[in-house]
């Protein structure tokens, strides 16, 4: 299935041949190579020519891209030593190793002569040092560009818990994680993805905890991806996810280092992508949609209660419209008489059928939500006023919509915010439920629920059943699903993930 879709979507593998050229012996020729061919027409590339200090002075050049490098360190550690130092021809002895070894004081310097390796490095903010008469250049680690500081993530705010969030720089992100997991078993594998963007992608896991099979599978999928650009981890997510057509996500994402650290400790694998604060985790299963990092920081009873509230919110937000619809159009006998009479009175004079009311009001709410997200805050407030007063109150007074329907929609909408991880998803589920319920009543609704559970149970994320633990009754399986067990009973890591190293804590130590 997956293969077919992929084949349909990518008819031909775009072939980007690596640059096979190498540097020449002459500085001028090399410079013109860059100027005329490689970076032709790119005015942001800076070519700085200078000479060393000795009698038969060596002509040198540094090539870099403006604003992508740390100019200070380039000047201090490369240009100044070269210009000040007198270099003897004997010391060079046909190789520029001496310069790397004894002259340049920068931390990273590699001698390289293949353009295929040099060019991408320049594009990533390194500088290239060329010396006349040598067919090799030195790649200097001068990366440094302006970056956002570590801030609290907007999308996942907490009351209690660390306030730091990932930024767009992958190395900083890795550092943030490393600071939380000070173990040599924490492994980072760096690869590049995207023929054009050459985005750095890091796979992070704890050796001995992460399942080797899942790791192998992940690497296989990453290697199979052929894409020209990776701008955000969402690209990777869609390329490697299981059940590609399902709206349910099988790859998790977060902006918070503490969540990533927690997931790694459970035996999961994280995928960092350069240029985005969103880090992916695999495997991702259904219960994680209902977990929040704060659950683990506060009292377990309150956390468990919150979890249950979230599951209830999921039920309410997906099912209320469908149940309301089927109750008042199919199963009127199940509504208590006074309630039925008041609904009947409220609906008297409303011109639209209930199905239409449900679907239309649901859509109106979605439009309001979507309209509000990308607006600046002051306009967003105006929008909510319009939504509440014009659509809610006025429509009910004008008898265009019945009042109970507005209550139902409002309830649905509020509940959907309790599980932010599923915002878009619940809309789809709700719509399907409503459509089926509109012609088979509650029986149709139950069919739809069966279908939903079937879809969920048939899904897998990297070989792990999506609904793992959701049906089980073993205490150790239940501990982190509907409830959050106290830390002092979470002896083992999740069984389905880390079956090699199960022990999370020693029982005896906590007595």
């Amino acid at each position, binding site marked *: 299935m997956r293969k077919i879709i992929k084949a349909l979507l990518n008819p031909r593998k775009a072939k980007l041949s690596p640059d096979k050229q190498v540097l020449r012996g002459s500085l001028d020729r090399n410079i013109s190579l860059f100027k005329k061919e490689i970076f032709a027409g790119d005015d942001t590339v800076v070519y700085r020519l200078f000479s060393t200090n000795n009698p038969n002075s060596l002509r040198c050049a540094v090539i870099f891209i403006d604003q992508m490098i740390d100019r200070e360190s380039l000047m201090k550690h490369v240009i100044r030593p070269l210009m000040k130092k007198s270099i003897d021809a004997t010391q060079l002895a046909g190789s520029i190793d001496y310069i790397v070894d004894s002259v340049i004081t920068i931390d990273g310097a590699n001698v390289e002569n293949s353009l295929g390796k040099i060019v991408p490095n320049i594009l990533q903010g390194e500088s290239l040092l060329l010396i006349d008469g040598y067919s090799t250049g030195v790649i200097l680690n001068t990366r440094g560009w302006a970056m956002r500081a570590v801030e609290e993530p907007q999308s996942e705010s907490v009351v209690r818990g660390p306030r730091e969030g990932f930024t767009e720089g992958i190395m900083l992100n890795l550092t943030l994680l490393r600071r939380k997991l000070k173990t040599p078993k924490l492994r980072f594998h760096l690869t590049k993805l995207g023929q054009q963007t050459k985005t750095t992608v890091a796979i992070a896991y704890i050796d001995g905890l992460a399942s080797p099979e899942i790791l192998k599978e992940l690497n296989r999928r990453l290697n199979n991806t052929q894409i020209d650009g990776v701008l955000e981890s969402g690209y990777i997510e869609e390329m490697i996810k299981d059940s590609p057509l399902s709206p349910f996500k099988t790859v998790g994402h977060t902006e918070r280092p503490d969540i990533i650290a927690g997931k790694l400790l459970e035996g999961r694998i994280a995928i960092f992508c350069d240029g985005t604060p969103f880090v992916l985790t695999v495997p991702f299963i259904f219960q994680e949609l209902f977990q929040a990092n704060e659950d683990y920081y506060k009292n377990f009873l309150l956390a468990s209660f919150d979890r249950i509230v979230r599951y209830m919110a999921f039920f309410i937000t997906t099912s209320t419209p469908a149940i309301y619809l089927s109750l008042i159009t*199919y199963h009127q006998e199940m509504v208590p008489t006074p309630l039925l009479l008041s609904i009947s009175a409220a609906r008297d004079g409303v011109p639209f059928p209930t199905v239409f009311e449900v679907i239309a009001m649901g859509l109106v709410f979605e439009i309001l939500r979507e309209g509000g997200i990308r607006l600046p805050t002051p306009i967003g407030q105006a929008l909510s006023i319009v939504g509440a007063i014009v659509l809610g109150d006025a429509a009910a007074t004008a008898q265009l919509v019945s009042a109970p329907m507005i209550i139902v929609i409002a309830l649905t909408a509020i509940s959907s915010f309790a599980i932010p991880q599923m915002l878009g998803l619940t809309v789809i589920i709700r719509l399907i439920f409503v459509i089926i319920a509109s*012609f088979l009543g509650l029986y149709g609704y139950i069919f739809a629920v069966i279908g939903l559970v079937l879809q969920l149970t048939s899904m897998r994320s990297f070989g792990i059943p999506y609904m793992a633990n959701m049906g089980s009754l073993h205490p150790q399986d239940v501990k982190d699903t509907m409830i959050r067990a106290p830390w002092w009973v979470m002896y083992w890591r999740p069984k389905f993930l880390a079956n090699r190293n199960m022990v999370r804590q020693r029982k005896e130590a906590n007595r």
Partner: protein
Amino acid sequence: MKRYIGFLCLLMVTTLGCWNYREVEELGIVSGVGIDKQENTSNYQLAIEIVNIKGGQDGQINHHPVITQGQSMFDSARNTILRTGQRAYWAHATAAVISEDLARDGILSVLDWVSRDAEVRSDIWLFVSSEKDAKSIFLTEPDLNDLVSFKLADMVSAHNSVPKFIPKELWKFKQELSAPGQSPTLPTIRIVENNGQKVPEIWGTAVFRKDKMVGWLDGLESFALSYALPKNAFGLIILPTTIEGKSGVVSYEVFGKTTMHSATFAGNRALMNVQVDLQVGIADLEGITPDYRETTILRMLEEDVSSFIKQEIRQVISRVQQEFKSDIFGFGGVIRQQLPHIWKDLESDWSEEFTKLDVRVAVNTTIRASGLLTAPIQMRD
């Protein structure tokens, strides 16, 4: 697999005919029905009370019975469409009143549709009209924003405090009808004047033999009947009492009542024991001031209550035995359960055997409370 979802959706869109889809405001919600036999024909005549709501923010309920005729129950129920344009929706019906003529002819034909149809719920309350037809009950004027049926349902739900009738749900009636050694009863409704208005009142009991009504018990007899039956009944007991030469009236409020039926073997006949335990409180003293702090007087009062109830129960049992020959107490069922070997002989001719059945009634009363007063209000000169 997803293509099956697609197929499903396709199926849905094409079949979106919505067969059972009914908008709630288009329903004629039936709250109650009066069932009559039409004069001179064998047709049914139904007085269907339909909730007619005027919509808007503050809905108003109009009282509005619809009269229809038809050859059968179902036929006449369907014929409402001709009169109102709305299909009657029966799931919220709370009361069905059956006319006496119909009840005497046999109630089974009425009940068949009511219990066969999936829409009518089996917890609908059944009544027999003691007026000349059932229609007139629904033609009385209820208060504003109320309906006769809802009023009847309210009365029924409070029956424990005034056990002058025995409410019966449809399923209970059917169960009694089909249970061996048991005959059903139904409460009856009459119309009384209240403040110049004609209002329905539930008062008394219609006694059935099998499915045919055979007679009435009035409210007071029904009171005794509810004490003889193993069910909850509270209410007041008003007794003229004479103590130390002074006579007056004592009212007792019943807090708890248990009735046990048991069958024993006496000689070669079955003997029914009806054991009633009452827990009462003194609620009202009029004309006398018995000092109930005295144990002897307390015992005397208790004895008074016991003998009164015992006498009432005996009276109603013997009346039912002699006059109606219908086992509305379920004695047969008790014998069947407790003495099955005897029941096998009695079963075939139970309605005859029932009249000869010996019933022993024992009442035991305990005065548990006396309101807020520890002693009668004392008058001193």
